[in-house]
């Protein structure tokens, strides 16, 4: 088990390999469909959001506003990442991301982006909303909430021991590609 603390250096990321289990400490920013499209079309990030050396989490959390005006995260599992494939490599490069967290894996463009810029894809456990919400110790901020609505907004989360698995590394390896090829061959034998 490797511990990653944000901001993360390129050397740390390049040392990771497919199949490594990690736990994350520090800051995660959520961003899903609306945010990717917005950034791809040249939208500006709010000044408070600094993605350099950071991690972008494909997640639309359930947030409850507390009486004192702060937010509490009550569910925070990953959403399917492949929808961001057309945008991801560009966003990794433009903003200096060191990791993208999501589920289901991503495609060749993102894999190439990871290799070029020193980034990894971290697979969180899909559906594990409660375990992952427990790792969120504080909601530090929310951006573009009015514009995109709660699941699609950028949430700034402080996390402790957030678990994930490296399924695409910065060396051009993808567990998703391997498992697909293997399962396709196994299926061919059984048809």
């Amino acid at each position: 088990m490797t511990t990653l603390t944000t901001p993360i250096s390129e050397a740390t990321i390049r040392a990771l390999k497919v199949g490594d289990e990690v736990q994350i400490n520090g800051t995660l920013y959520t961003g899903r469909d609306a945010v990717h499209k917005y950034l791809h079309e040249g939208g500006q990030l709010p000044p408070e959001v600094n993605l350099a050396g950071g991690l972008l989490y494909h997640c639309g959390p359930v947030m409850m506003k507390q009486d004192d005006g702060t937010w509490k995260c009550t569910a925070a599992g990953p959403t399917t990442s492949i929808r961001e494939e057309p945008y991801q490599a560009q966003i990794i490069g433009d903003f200096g991301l060191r990791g993208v967290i999501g589920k289901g894996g991503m495609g060749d463009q993102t894999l190439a982006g990871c290799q070029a810029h020193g980034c990894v894809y971290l697979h969180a456990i899909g559906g594990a909303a409660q375990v992952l919400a427990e790792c969120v110790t504080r909601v530090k901020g929310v951006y573009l909430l009015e514009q995109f609505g709660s699941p699609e907004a950028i949430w700034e989360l402080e996390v402790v021991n957030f678990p994930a698995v490296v399924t695409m590394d910065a060396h051009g390896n993808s567990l998703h590609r391997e498992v697909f090829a293997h399962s396709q061959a196994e299926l061919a034998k059984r048809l």
Partner: protein
Amino acid sequence: MASLLDSLIELIRRTSAELPEDVNAALVRSLEAEKKGTIAESALKLIERNIELAKRKSQPICQDTGSVIFYVECPLGLDQLAFEETAREAVQQATKKGYLRQNSVDSITGKNDGTNTGPGAPAVHFHQHRSPETNIRLILKGGGCENVGAQYSLPAEKLHANRDLDGCRKVILDAVLQAQGKGCGPGILGVCIGGDRATGYEFSKQQFLRKLDDRNPEPKLDALEQDILKTANELGIGPMGFGGKTTLLGVKICAANRVPASYFVSVSYMCWAYRRQGVTLGADSQITGWLY
């Protein structure tokens, strides 16, 4: 309809926070089957912890609380319009309480008004029966697994799938291959052979009302269900697509008549967060029993 409202809110709460027993049991078995020390095992352990935590805290198991689909078996004479009104109110209140995420988007404007209600949301299917009881079943169908569903039109030349049960087997297994872990496997398949494009998908989803450990009364479909379950679990896709032994927890297949010109096979995929519950209501709309 105050007590119907309360009963529906409680149904939503429990469906969102607790998996039915048959699903829990299948997940426990799959954890035992995985090789120790693998990432597949870690994934399932985390899933187990998550299920336990959600139940204890009465919080959504998964943050995608899905499409809200009610199946109502009702006696003749039930006021369906009033029921639907109450169901909408229950969904709105359950959302305010955090049992459901603000999860429903206007497809034209892209706006999410936070109520979880709108055209088609929630979906309510009524079936009358000649019994005085009302049974309400609820499925929360997540988007990630809905997206990996597939509808095939046979013959499917590329897959060498003809218009017979072997052709059905080929396309159903293709759906499993294409889905990989993207629908949050280990998953459950609901399949309809036949029907038109709309009823095919509708019936495939209704298969999710069956318990995982039941058997299909039609021997040919039963054999197909067992075969696909076994074959899928030999492919090495595994939990979350990490590789491993459990790719599917169950396969449920039904058949519907088709017109001679069409032969559809509609496959719906349900994630491990298989949220299905049901209640029987008494005369005063109080919950008198749970169906799963």
